[in-house]
């Protein structure tokens, strides 16, 4: 579409990046809140749209460029291939809705805070775009850390609350540690040229690493990018930072930023490294499943709606990592078709998650605006006050629960297919592992349904748990438009999978040298047939039509043959006389069975009232055991070392002189 104008997609994308930066600067300079929310953010959304279009156009071509910036002997290398194009597409398409939503969400903000926020927001966008475009280690690191930095400032937007500051600290610290690991990973892959020539990805592609060093690289990458993605045990920042951030930012971080880490893992594993070993895959698979289960179980026991979504993000990242692991296993055992299938599922899920999680986070933003409440225990019955929001959120919740015919199901379906077709792997143990992995995956998926019912039911259904909810208003127009974009994305991705897969094929073709299009195209667009029609097929559109048609038909028939009379009365509830809002399940109550079943895996602190308490008080909170295992000891060690060092700085000048003296003598002795 752009070639007709004689512009390369990459140029367009660079243009959008510059455009975003310009917008941000304009916002900072002008500091006019009305201008920022009504002009700049919509323009930013426009930029996203253009970016998505350009990425779509650039899927099937490779273009490179070199900017005269960066290090003297390592200028900025840019490269757009199918992989980057796909993730750019993800970025562009998902950020349209978010930017539009922001136009409404940030409207009330004081302009002194809004100016910097606008700049950070657009730097964040630009940084992510550059991460996908970077083709040398230096530019990648710069873009990567700029992204981290801007998002850190976004997270700490309302920094008056100490927990927000804590969240920001934890977030940037873990991100930085991860960045160091990534830097080392690039260092290991260094293409061996003199100077920094070897730090272009091109040199790394042509580098031949022995198996040991390749493994070191892979695990460094897994660690470094895992820190950003929230893979166990580096997830600690995620449930802190997402609730702390303003909702559009949470949506952006959870929906898009986590995917930059996925991009990094894919880029390093399949593009930069020339070998992939199956046992990496096994490791990633196991880790992914652990992460998924951990995330969903903890999501089930949360009572802060944004924390809940954050944990569910961990779960979805786990899914994606599982897919990557499966891809590696298949790829190393030369089952290219299966590798392509698993990879398709992975990418598809990344795309889906961007939309559904983005949608839900945006929704929490509107709820927050309307009620000022994040705690599930104070919400309820919002479907009556904010029906449109409720409808949009229902789409998101069903999608995230992985129900047909929405998009969450498609990627799960593909992934399960990949598992089902796995038998016949050369490694018997892996063969044993597969069914268990599939079971764990299915379990996590089912639990996701549980979580979503809790999330949606407690917030939107039932009676309001707080009197203040009586006069809440529905979300603003901009907000609803933004969420509508996301919801439409969820539905479209769910109903027309064949189209999506046709585009994903470019990526699979590039990474595992095989694609599904041959089989997918055979049976037409209506059916999704990744391998063969006899093996497996899925027609979401048919499904949707039948369900909708079926219910309409039934409704019609019932009206026709009988009647449609309705009377309203008080709820029956087995005839119990007084029903208050406090009688329905709280969020904690709804999560209680899960807590009971998995109590062994989480630190549960309970405070149970004695039988004769005048004012009985029950309190229960769930802690992350991994924190005590990994993080607390590190801090303790650091403090101990600091104390030890402190003793050296004694304050007596004689001691200081003694240091110098001893050093001198030691060196002299060393010279002799």
């Amino acid at each position, binding site marked *: 579409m752009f070639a007709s104008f004689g512009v390369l997609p990459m140029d367009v994308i660079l243009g959008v990046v510059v455009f975003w930066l310009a917008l941000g600067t304009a916002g900072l300079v002008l500091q006019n809140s009305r201008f920022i929310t009504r002009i700049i953010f919509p323009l930013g959304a426009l930029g996203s749209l253009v970016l998505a279009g350009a990425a779509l156009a650039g899927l099937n071509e490779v273009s490179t460029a070199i900017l005269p910036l960066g290090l003297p002997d390592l200028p900025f290398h840019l490269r757009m291939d199918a992989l980057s194009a796909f993730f750019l597409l993800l970025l562009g398409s998902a950020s349209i809705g978010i930017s539009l939503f922001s136009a409404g969400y940030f409207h009330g903000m004081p302009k002194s805070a809004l100016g910097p926020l606008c700049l950070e927001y657009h730097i964040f966008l630009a940084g992510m775009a550059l991460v996908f475009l970077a083709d040398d280690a230096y530019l990648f690191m710069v873009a990567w850390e700029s992204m981290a930095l801007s998002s850190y400032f976004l997270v700490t937007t309302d920094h008056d609350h100490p927990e927000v500051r804590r969240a920001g600290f934890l977030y940037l610290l873990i991100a930085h540690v991860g960045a160091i690991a990534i830097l080392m990973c690039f260092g290991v892959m260094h293409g061996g040229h003199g100077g920094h020539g070897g730090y272009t990805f091109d040199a790394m592609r042509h580098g031949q690493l022995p198996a040991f060093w390749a493994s070191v690289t892979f695990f460094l990458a897994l660690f470094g990018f895992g820190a950003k993605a929230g893979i166990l045990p580096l997830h600690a920042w995620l449930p802190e930072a997402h609730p702390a951030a303003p909702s559009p930012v949470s949506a952006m971080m959870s929906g898009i930023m986590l995917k930059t880490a996925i991009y990094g893992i894919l880029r390093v594993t399949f593009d930069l490294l020339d070998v992939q070993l199956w046992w990496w895959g096994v490791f990633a698979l196991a880790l992914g499943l652990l992460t998924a289960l951990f995330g969903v179980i903890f999501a089930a026991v949360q009572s802060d709606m944004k924390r809940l979504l954050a944990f569910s993000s961990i779960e979805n990242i786990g899914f994606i990592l599982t897919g990557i692991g499966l891809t590696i296993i298949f790829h190393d055992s030369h089952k290219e078709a299966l590798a392509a299938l698993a990879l398709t599922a992975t990418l598809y899920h990344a795309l889906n998650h961007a939309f559904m999680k983005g949608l839900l986070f945006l929704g929490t933003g509107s709820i927050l605006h309307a009620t000022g409440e994040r705690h599930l225990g104070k919400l309820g*019955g919002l*479907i009556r006050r904010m029906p449109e929001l*409720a409808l949009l959120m229902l789409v998101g919740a*069903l999608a995230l629960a*992985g*129900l*047909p015919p929405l998009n969450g*199901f498609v990627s799960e379906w593909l992934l*399960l*297919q990949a598992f*089902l077709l796995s*038998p016949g792997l050369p490694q018997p143990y892996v063969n044993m592992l*597969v*069914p*268990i992995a599939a*079971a764990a995956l299915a379990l996590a*998926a*089912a639990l996701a*349904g*549980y979580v979503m*019912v*809790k999330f949606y*039911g407690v917030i939107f*259904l*039932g009676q309001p748990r707080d009197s203040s909810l009586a006069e809440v208003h529905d979300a603003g127009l901009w907000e609803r438009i933004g969420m509508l974009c996301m919801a439409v994305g969820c539905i479209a991705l769910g109903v027309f999978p064949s189209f999506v897969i046709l585009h994903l094929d470019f990526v699979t073709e590039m990474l595992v040298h095989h694609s599904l299009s041959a089989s997918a195209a055979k049976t037409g667009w209506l*059916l999704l047939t990744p391998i063969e*029609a*006899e*093996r*497996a*097929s*899925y027609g979401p559109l*048919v499904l949707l039509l*039948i*369900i*909708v*048609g*079926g*219910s*309409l038909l*039934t*409704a019609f028939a019932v009206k026709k043959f*009988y009647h449609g*009379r*309705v*009377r*309203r*009365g*008080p*709820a029956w*509830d*087995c005839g*119990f006389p007084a*029903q208050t809002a406090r*009688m329905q*399940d709280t969020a904690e109550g*709804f999560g*209680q*069975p899960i807590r009971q*079943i998995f109590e062994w895996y989480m630190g549960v602190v309970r405070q149970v009232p004695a039988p004769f308490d005048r004012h009985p008080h029950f309190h229960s909170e769930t802690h992350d055991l991994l924190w005590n295992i990994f993080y607390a000891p590190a801090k303790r060690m650091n403090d101990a070392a600091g104390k030890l060092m402190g003793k050296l700085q004694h304050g007596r000048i004689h001691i200081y002189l003694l240091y110098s003296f001893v050093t001198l003598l030691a060196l002299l002795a060393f010279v002799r």
Partner: protein
Amino acid sequence: MSYPSLLLQLAQNALVLLIAPLLLGWTSQCRAWMQNRSGAGVLQPYRNLNKLFHKDAVLAVNASALFRATPYILLACMWLAAALVPVLATGLPLSPAVDVIALVGIFALARVFISLAAMDIGTAFGSLGARREMLVGFLAEPALLMVLFTASTISGSTSLITIVETLAHKPFVLYPSMVFAAVAFIMVMLAENARIPVDNPATHLELTMIHEAMVLEYSARHLALVEWAGALKLLAYTTICIALFVPWGIAETGNWGALPLAVAALALKLAGAGAGLALLETLSAKMRIFRVPEFMGTAFLLAVLGLLTHFLLETAA
């Protein structure tokens, strides 16, 4: 798709819709006999539905659109599910659109909707029921999936048609994995259809009820639809059970001559299944709700074991 197959599909749709209450009635009738009661007759479910459809619907004051839409969606889902399972003949034109995984998905969709509807009014019972339903569901769903996986790994496909054809028309092989699967499936079936020992549709006892607690607020035609959907669900599970474990006698694609025989076989199998279900319910007692997770966990474990045994014993050959 050809006309005859389309015809067949429509026929099956109509058939399942009509005979679903019959199976329900037959089961309860059998149970009555086994418990030395003279039951209400096999047609009782139809009478109930008719009665309910005639009544005026009474909705709670704060019932939302979701609450009202749910029964229809529920019925549609279950109807689709039941219509997909090849009972008389393979080669249903719809089945390529929905394979076993999607089938499980449809069940999950229905479950989520009914649970949400239950929470809508905001009564103690409603949310209690919803929670318990989801609790049962999140363990039953993967177990069911595993059972189906066992079958589909044997037949190398996830489409029900292919599964049934392979199982039915291959020379008879005894699959140990399928034994595990069968046990697991039956446990799941009991749980999913609100049967003893997991749930007891006959009582409104707070401590025990799951399904009933969710539909308390429904009345008249809505309740009727829910009931009907329940019947369809039972039918769907039964037919899946038949299709997976005793598929013999089903008519192949296009082989019209075999249809009458297939009908007879189906009637026989359904009757047997109903009776078996009744027997199970009579023999076992309702268990405490807290034991349900263990029960379902066992089912899940058995299903996984089934899949494992398949990989251990049957792929090696």
